[in-house]
């Protein structure tokens, strides 16, 4: 494990910004994928009374996991921006459950990276959401 590896650098960075607010943390990774998670918080609810979980944290966790999957695949530290993101909500997430997002980066071109992501709240066989997101590298050519 080389300390300068960009993915190791990503993993070792202390959470800041919105990652810190949601408590997003690294779970596992492979050559072209990354799994991140965030613990449930009462702030994720749409309605404190009904226990309905907002889909907003799901979007943010997907965005984070997809970005991490791209770095896992490219092993490059390149500034990038999300181009588009589509989420299919298969079912509502359950309250009190940690959300997991496992994203795979399927292809990287000079300018664009394509990812897909699955989200579950404890059982990978019973997913909460499927997503597809593309990113572009923002640095000048």
């Amino acid at each position: 494990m080389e300390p300068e590896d960009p993915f190791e650098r990503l993993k070792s960075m202390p959470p800041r910004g919105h990652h810190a607010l949601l408590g997003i943390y690294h779970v596992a990774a492979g050559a072209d994928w990354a799994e991140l998670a965030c613990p449930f918080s009462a702030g994720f609810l749409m309605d404190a009374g009904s226990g309905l979980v907002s889909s907003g944290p799901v979007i943010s966790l997907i965005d984070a996991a997809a970005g991490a999957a791209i770095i896992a695949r490219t092993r490059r530290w390149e500034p990038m921006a999300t181009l588009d993101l589509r989420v299919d909500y298969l079912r509502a997430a359950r309250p009190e459950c940690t959300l997991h997002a496992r994203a795979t980066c399927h292809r990287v071109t000079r300018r664009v990276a394509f990812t897909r992501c699955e989200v579950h709240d404890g059982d990978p066989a019973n997913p909460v959401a499927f997503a597809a997101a593309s990113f572009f590298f923002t640095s000048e050519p």
Partner: protein
Amino acid sequence: MIDRAPYAQLLGVREWIDADGSTGLVMPASVALEGRLGFLYGGVIGSVLELACLAALAGEGEVAAERPRPINITIDFLRGGLMVESYAQARIVRLGKRVVNVDATCWQSDRESPIATGRMHILRA
């Protein structure tokens, strides 16, 4: 009613009334909403678009807004969101018997230069 949701309060989202009387959402920038340095987190922009869609449903007196069942959302990120106040407004394209189609836009200082747009399908009943 959307701004009473704990998640809307987590983001600092409040309801906002336009000069023409239409309603939308406003979200002040804060460090807790930042992604890469100096820019709003993409997931936050997607979330505020989604909340704007639900607020539009609530504005129609739609009961589905109180216990929304989102089917899916598609978000286009058009510009980097700066660390300034963001606005979002949504328009119901079709209020069907079973499904509602909603379009949403998010902008910052210039409404004519949106930072993101979104399309959402929400189940009724």
